[in-house]
């Protein structure tokens, strides 16, 4: 089976990195049980590098996995789209992982596809997904505008994941200084205000009672499985206040009150830090509109305090070789709620 150019270069790079002992593990994707749903792969031996794949379904955010390697001093390589890169920058800025222990394998991302949306767009009958999606995964080079499936032309935009429609960061932040580019950087993306915040605005247009009912209904559905927090790459605290059984900030019972407490707390904790990768919503088993809540905060932060800046780790690869390199790379990066301006708007008199 032919593999696309990015996969080819990814396998070669991974093989080289592992063979030369530069990294202990390469975090990327491999084919999973279902076509259209590649799963994260942790490649430790050069001969396993051929398991790695890169296709239009590699949507999961891999940044969080680096936190599993906090203890130790070896290097790890991570395949990074724009959102993985932004999350890595946040993790580095939060001093949770040093930049010089990372090898960032950057890929320009034109937006990732969702298997269900592709199947819908192509009118695939139930049970005929696997073969068709396998064909897309193998054939659609990342970056292709569209493809033909089930005899129908499917545009790439029709199959995009919702968070990819809203994407403003198809490439890793420049401040992260990627070590290797596996593809060309993707062209910039400029979603419309409606694509970015249309659903937030729709809720804002409701009366406060209607909004209350909407969120009460949503939060009552929450099972408090913590999948949204566990999958969130910027939820990188070593200890989470929501796990603290001693203080009992969050009770164990699953009811509306505790669920509200959980979601409001989490929303405030990711405010100004959320990278918009949409993993929370994808992981949620009961379909809570979580990114609406977080985008409301991103929107208001931008409105109040100006554009939410990408954290810029102070040092890059340059400092890694320096004698004091161990301390560098843990440079702290502030975010909207940990800094202020004297002339911030003031609505409180």
């Amino acid at each position, binding site marked *: 089976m032919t593999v696309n150019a990015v996969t080819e270069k990814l396998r070669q790079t991974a093989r080289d990195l592992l063979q030369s002992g530069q990294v202990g593990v390469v975090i990327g994707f491999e084919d999973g049980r279902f076509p259209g749903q590649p799963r994260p792969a942790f490649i430790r031996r050069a001969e396993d590098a051929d398991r790695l794949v890169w296709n239009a379904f590699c949507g999961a955010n891999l940044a969080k996995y680096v936190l599993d390697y906090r203890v130790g001093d070896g290097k790890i390589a991570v395949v990074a789209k724009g959102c993985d890169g932004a999350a890595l920058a946040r993790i580095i800025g939060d001093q949770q992982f040093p930049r010089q222990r990372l090898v960032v394998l950057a890929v320009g991302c034109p937006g990732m596809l969702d298997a269900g949306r592709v199947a819908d767009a192509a009118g695939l009958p139930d049970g005929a997904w696997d073969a068709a999606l396998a064909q897309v995964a193998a054939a659609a080079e990342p970056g292709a505008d569209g493809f033909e499936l089930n005899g129908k032309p499917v545009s790439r935009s029709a199959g995009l994941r919702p968070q990819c429609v809203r994407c403003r960061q198809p490439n890793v932040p420049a401040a992260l200084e990627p070590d290797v580019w596996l593809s060309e950087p993707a062209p910039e993306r400029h979603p419309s205000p409606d694509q970015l915040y249309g659903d937030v605005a729709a809720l804002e247009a409701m009366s406060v009672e209607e909004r209350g009912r909407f969120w009460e209904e949503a939060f009552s559905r929450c099972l408090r499985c913590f999948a949204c927090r566990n999958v969130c790459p910027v939820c990188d605290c070593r200890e989470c206040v929501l796990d603290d059984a001693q203080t009992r900030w969050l009770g164990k019972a699953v009811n*509306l*009150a*505790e669920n*509200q407490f959980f979601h*409001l707390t989490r929303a405030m904790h990711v405010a100004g830090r959320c990278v918009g990768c949409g993993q929370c919503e994808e992981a949620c088993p009961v379909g809570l509109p979580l990114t609406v809540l977080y985008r*409301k905060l991103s929107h208001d932060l931008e409105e109040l305090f100006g554009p939410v800046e990408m954290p810029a780790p102070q040092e890059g690869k340059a400092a890694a070789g320096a004698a004091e390199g161990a301390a560098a790379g843990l440079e702290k990066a502030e975010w909207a709620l940990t800094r202020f301006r004297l002339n911030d708007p003031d609505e409180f008199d």
Partner: protein
Amino acid sequence: MSIRAAAAGSQTAEAEEVLGPAEARRQAHQASQPAAAGAPAPQAWEPLIVAFCCNWCSYAGADLAGTSRLGYPPNVRVIRVPCSGRVNPLFIVKAFQSGADGVLVAGCHPGDCHYSTGNYFTRRRFLLFRRLLEFIGVEPGRFHARWISGSEGPKFAQVMTEITQEVRRLGPNRMLRDARDVQ
């Protein structure tokens, strides 16, 4: 007996033991409405306001209001914090869920913080959090932040009066309810 019951009187406390705090308050509120004027009125609903006051300005402002013999509604419960920057948004949610109908965060005027910059963080945090509360359905007017200095006793009394009136008009808090009342 909860702080809520202490505020509203023993009759509500009895109802609360049977019905749970929020239901007892809802019934008390309904009973206090004009439509129920003819019926034997149980203890009328009284709003409960929780005020987080910074030690250096707003708490001193409250002190000055007291020593100046300025009256303000007894619905306010003051919680002293070292700095308004100490107030975590979680405190606000917990206050509402513990029975508060309104919450106030009061601190030094920007520029006057005892710790130089604490209240600038407060300002950012609660500009955002207030919008979040309104977004999930908490009426504007339940959550307030105010700058009250140690020399502003009259302002302290006035702010407490205004907020109590506003929350009284809104009625009992229904959105962020007590965990014991919610299934």
